[in-house]
C-alpha cells in the first residue's frame, strides 16, 4: 500500500514535470524541470528495487547531460516569442516521434509478455552484481557497440564544431614549465652615465 502510494506520488510528479518541460516559457526553467523529471524516474527505479540503474541514471543524466544542457541553454539569448512561433512548425515531427514511442510501449506491454531475464535482475538482492555478471558476458557485443556509437557521436560533434585557425596564439605549457628565470631575465650592473647597450 505504502509502496503503491509512493509510486503514484513520484509517477504523477514525473508526468507533471514532463509537461512543465514542454510548456515552460523560459528554456532554463525547462531544463530544470527536466532535471526534476530525471530525479523522479530515479526514484521510480529505486522503488522497483533497481537501485543501481536508478543511481546511474542520476549520475549520467542529472550529473552530466543536464548540466551540459543547462550550460548551453544559459548562454543562448533567446527571444521567447519567436520560440513559441517556431514550436508550431515542429508539431507534426513531434507527433510522429510520440506515435512511434507509444507504439513501442504498447508492443512491449501488451504483446510481449515474456520477461524472464529482466525479472531475475530486478528481484535479486544485489542487482549491481547481477548487472555486472551479464553486462560483460552475455551482452558484451551490445555493450561495446553502444560505446562505439557514443564515441562516434563525440568525434562527429568535435569535427563539426572545431575550426582550425593557424594564426591563433596558443600557450605551450610544456615550454612554459621548462623555462627558468635565467632564460628570460638578466641582471646587468650599469655604470653611472653609460646606460644599457642592447646586444640584439
Amino acid at each position, binding site marked *: 500500500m505504502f509502496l503503491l502510494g509512493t509510486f503514484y506520488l513520484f509517477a504523477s510528479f514525473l508526468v507533471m514535470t514532463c509537461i512543465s518541460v514542454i510548456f515552460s516559457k523560459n528554456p532554463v526553467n525547462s531544463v530544470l524541470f527536466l532535471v526534476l523529471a530525471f530525479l523522479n524516474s530515479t526514484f521510480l527505479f529505486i522503488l522497483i528495487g533497481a537501485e543501481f540503474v536508478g543511481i546511474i541514471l542520476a549520475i549520467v543524466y542529472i550529473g552530466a547531460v543536464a548540466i551540459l544542457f543547462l550550460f548551453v541553454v544559459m548562454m543562448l539569448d533567446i527571444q521567447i516569442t519567436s520560440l513559441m512561433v517556431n514550436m508550431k512548425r515542429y508539431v507534426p515531427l513531434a507527433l510522429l516521434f510520440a506515435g512511434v514511442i507509444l507504439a513501442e510501449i504498447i508492443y512491449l506491454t501488451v504483446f510481449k509478455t515474456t520477461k524472464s531475464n529482466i525479472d531475475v535482475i530486478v528481484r535479486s538482492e544485489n542487482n549491481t552484481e547481477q548487472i555486472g555478471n551479464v553486462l560483460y558476458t552475455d551482452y558484451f557485443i551490445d555493450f561495446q557497440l553502444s560505446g562505439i556509437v557514443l564515441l562516434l557521436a563525440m568525434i562527429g560533434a568535435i569535427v563539426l564544431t572545431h575550426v582550425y585557425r593557424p594564426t591563433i596564439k596558443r*600557450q605551450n*605549457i610544456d615550454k612554459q614549465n621548462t623555462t627558468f628565470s635565467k632564460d628570460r631575465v638578466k641582471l646587468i650592473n650599469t655604470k653611472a652615465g653609460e646606460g644599457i647597450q642592447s646586444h640584439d
Partner: protein
Amino acid sequence: MSPIALEIIIGVLKIFSIILPVLISVALLVYLERKVLGAIQLRRGPNVVGPFGILQSFADVIKLITKENLLPSSSNKFLFIFAPMLTLILSLISWAVIPVSSSYVISNINIGILYLFAVSSFGVYGVIIAGWASNSKYPFLGALRSAAQMISYEVSIGFVIITVLICVGSLNLIDIVESQKDLWFAIPLLPMFIVFIISALAETNRLPFDLPEDEATLVAGFFTEYSSISFGLFFLAEYANMILMSSLTVILFLGGWYPPLDIFPLNVVPGIIWFALKVFLILFVFLWVRATFPRYRYDQLMRLGWKIFLPLTLIWVVITSSFLFYFGLLPN
C-alpha cells in the same frame, strides 16, 4: 506509541546526531583555517572572541544572520533564494551514508559510494543556478567556470573510485573500509590517492582551483550578489563539502576507523576517534595547500584535468585490474 512513530523519532534523532557535529565542525574548521593561515603567514589569526578566539565563527554566523538579505531587482527571485538552500541540502544529505565507525551509519546501503558520487555531482547545480539567477556578469562567468571545472574533475574522481572498487569488490562503504583492515589503499594506490586529493580540491572549489570564486578577476564569483544568510549558506555548504570530501578520502584510502597498526595502545582507541583524526589530517592538507600554492590559470586547470589526470587514472584502472587478475587477487 506506535512502532512507526518510534522509528521516525529514532531516525530523526540519528540524523541530528550526524548533522549537528558536522555543523559544529564546520564552525571549528573555519576557525582552524584562519588560525592555520595566520600561523603560516606569521600572523595571530582570530584571538578576540572567546578563549583563543575559538568563538569567532559563531560570532560571524550571528553577524550574517542579523544582516539584511538583499534581492537584486533583476534576478530570478525563486531560483536566487533556492540555490544556496539546494547547495547546503546536497552537502548535508551525503552524510546519510558516511560510516563514522564500524557500527554507526544512518543508512547502510549497497551502493553507498555511487550515492555519494551522484550527490556530489549534483552540487554543481547550486552554483550554476546561483550564477544564472543573479542575472549579473561576474556570477554568470563564475557559474560557467564552475560547471566546466566540476564536470572535468568528476571524470577522474570516477576512475579513482573505480580503481578502489576493483580492489574491494563491493559498492558498500563499510565493505570498502573493512577490506583495508590490513593494508590501507593509500599505500598500493598512492598515485590514485594523490589524484583524488587534488580532484577533491577542484570539486570543492578550493584553492588553488577556486576559479569559480576568483576574487582577483570575478569579484566573488557565483555568490557576488549574495548577502547575509544566503551567503552564509553557501559558505557553510563549502566547508561541509570539504569535510565530506575528506571523510570520503579517509574511507577510500586511509582505512576509515581502523588504527594505523593493530597493536595494543592504538587498537583500544575507539574507531570514531581515528576517523576524526584522519579527517583532520586531510583537512589540514587542504588548508596547507591553500596557504602554499598560487591559483591556477583556467587553461592550466582544464589541462590538468583532461590531459594529465584522465589518462593517468584510466591507465591505473587497467594496471590495477590486470595486476589483480594476473595474480588471482580479484575479490569474489
